[in-house]
């Protein structure tokens, strides 16, 4: 075992001696030139971008091989410098095809398992690189002179300025319109049939003496559509408390269950009927999509729910739920921001809140200036986007320039 180990070490050493000699001796393959190592922008500080000019014999080059000096942790001594090293100290980090003249090395892990990671790119410290060319027949060029790359952690992501600007503009417009609405200026919200029928649907269940089912979808509490679902749940719960109609809320996520209990309980308190609140009506079934659907469909058929609400994130279960509800003859109101599921809900339920209508529910139902103002701001930004899109298309078609595009694309 030891002998074979020795053999391999010798072989590697031989290769180490012969390799550079072949490359750096009388090689007729010209090396690449003007190697530059720069920090990769907008990263956390463990990446270096290399660029170089192609070899004069570019047509013969099959690969460019990238070498660097390995990382040495501070407790093992100062970082290695090119002038103190021999060829064997350099390690190959990668290779790119002959036509490519750039390479990015990113490595943020100081260790691999228990060992030090020689490929680690330290932040704010030099890493040395050099490149050579390799021809298809194995001929190697000389190395370029070693260059220093210093990776830096960046404090601002310049590619995300556009998102930040839009968010700030939207935020400012929201505050402006909230103030306007607070001063008593009337802000118009177009009628949304799905929301205006909520009271009617609850009334129907009360008249029939049957429960109401509220499904918050199969998303998670971190999704906006689910949170918007809670807004409508609060409204529905307040009404069911007034009418003393049972409200069933089966959920597919324990966190969502806790939130749903809090929402319904608050709504019952607000309606002045905490005595009617039954926490057992809000229960967890399963995190899995289809067992959840099977249980909810069973619930519809057994309890003969008169009104079903589907508000939140839905996937393939949308039609399974809505068709089962249609079989039991329930009034059904649905809302989701999942574009693929909207057609199924439109086909199988009585009213559907399409995309952003679901988010507008709180403003529409409460008519509170604080909630209505942001809706107006959203519409203004949407109008601006629409105008930019039209102008951009016109500019690109008529003038063949891309000024508007470059305005909104970060550089």
């Amino acid at each position, binding site marked *: 075992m030891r002998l074979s180990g020795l053999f391999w070490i010798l072989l590697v050493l031989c290769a180490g001696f012969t390799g550079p000699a072949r490359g750096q001796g009388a090689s007729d393959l010209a090396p690449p030139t003007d190697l530059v190592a720069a920090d990769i922008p907008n990263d956390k500080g463990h990446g270096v971008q290399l660029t170089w000019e192609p070899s004069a014999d570019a047509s013969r080059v099959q690969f460019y091989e990238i070498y660097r000096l390995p990382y040495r942790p501070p407790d093992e001594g100062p970082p290695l410098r090119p002038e103190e090293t021999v060829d064997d100290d350099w390690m190959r980090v990668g290779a790119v095809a002959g036509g490519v003249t750039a390479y990015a090395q990113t490595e943020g892990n100081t260790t691999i398992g228990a060992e030090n990671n020689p490929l680690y790119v330290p932040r704010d410290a030099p890493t040395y690189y050099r490149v050579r060319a390799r021809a298809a027949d194995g001929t190697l060029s000389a190395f370029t002179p070693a260059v220093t790359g210093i990776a830096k952690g960046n404090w601002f992501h310049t590619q995300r300025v556009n998102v930040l600007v839009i968010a700030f503009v939207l935020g400012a417009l929201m505050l402006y319109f*909230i103030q306007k609405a607070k001063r008593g200026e009337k802000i118009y919200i177009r009628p949304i049939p799905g929301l205006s029928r909520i009271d009617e649907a609850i009334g129907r269940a009360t008249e029939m003496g049957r429960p109401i089912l509220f499904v918050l979808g199969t998303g998670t509490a971190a999704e906006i559509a689910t949170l918007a679902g809670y807004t409508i749940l609060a409204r529905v719960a307040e009404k069911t408390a007034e009418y003393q109609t049972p409200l069933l809320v089966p959920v597919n996520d324990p966190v969502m269950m806790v939130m749903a209990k809090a929402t319904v309980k608050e709504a019952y308190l607000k309606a002045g009927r905490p005595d009617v609140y039954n926490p057992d009506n809000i229960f967890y079934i399963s995190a899995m999509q289809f067992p959840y659907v099977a249980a909810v469909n069973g619930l519809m058929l057994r309890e003969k729910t008169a009104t079903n609400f589907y508000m939140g994130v839905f996937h393939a279960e949308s039609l399974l739920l809505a068709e089962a509800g249609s079989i039991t003859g329930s009034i059904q109101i649905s809302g989701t921001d999942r574009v693929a599921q909207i057609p199924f809900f439109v086909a199988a339920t009585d009213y559907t809140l399409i995309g952003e209508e679901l988010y507008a529910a709180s403003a529409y139902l409460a008519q509170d200036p604080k*909630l209505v103002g942001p809706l107006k701001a959203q519409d203004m930004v949407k109008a601006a986007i629409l105008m930019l899109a039209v102008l951009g298309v016109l500019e690109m078609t008529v003038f063949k320039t891309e000024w508007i595009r470059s305005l909104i694309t970060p550089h």
Partner: protein
Amino acid sequence: MKKQLPMFLVFLCGMIMIVQFVVPHEYSQTLFQHSQDFVIVIGVLALPIGIYSLMKSTVTKARREPKERLYSLITIIGFAVMIIAGLKRDWFTSSTSLSSNLFNYILVPAQATLFSMLAFYIASAAYRAFRARTALAAVLLITAFVVMLRLIPMPEPLSTWNAEFVRWILEVPNMAAKRAILIGVGLGAVTYSIKLLLGIERAYMGGD
């Protein structure tokens, strides 16, 4: 205080997320990584509450309605057997274990069956919904018809023409409508998020 503290937490966490979005530095990314770990921890900690709720509702149902008892019993037994069958990693990963057999011969067919019911429901919904009541409904009907025709063998060159036409439908009118909805959804989501951060939207905590 009962409302203000959660709202402050929402604001704080939201601000951290916004800051990490525009700050790529390692410090910010480490903070982001830890916050993501917290989400997993919260999810795992909430699981026992979910299990308790499931068991409680199952038992309550069994007590209240004698007809439900058999189903409740199946739920409880199924739950217990799956937990026991997956207690050890080897039991879970071995292809001949009880866990794998339950998975392959009960769960897989049951889930596939439920998903396949979608085909029947789509047929039924299409039968009821695709009627040319108005001019717009007629356009929808014809479009759906053409798209579905793609899967029916037709003589050439009809088949190629249809495939090209369907691709155009999917890439142009379909995409235009989808992008319009997506822009609305995206802006709505940003607005909703700002409302959440500023504490304007609080219905998910039971309202004011």
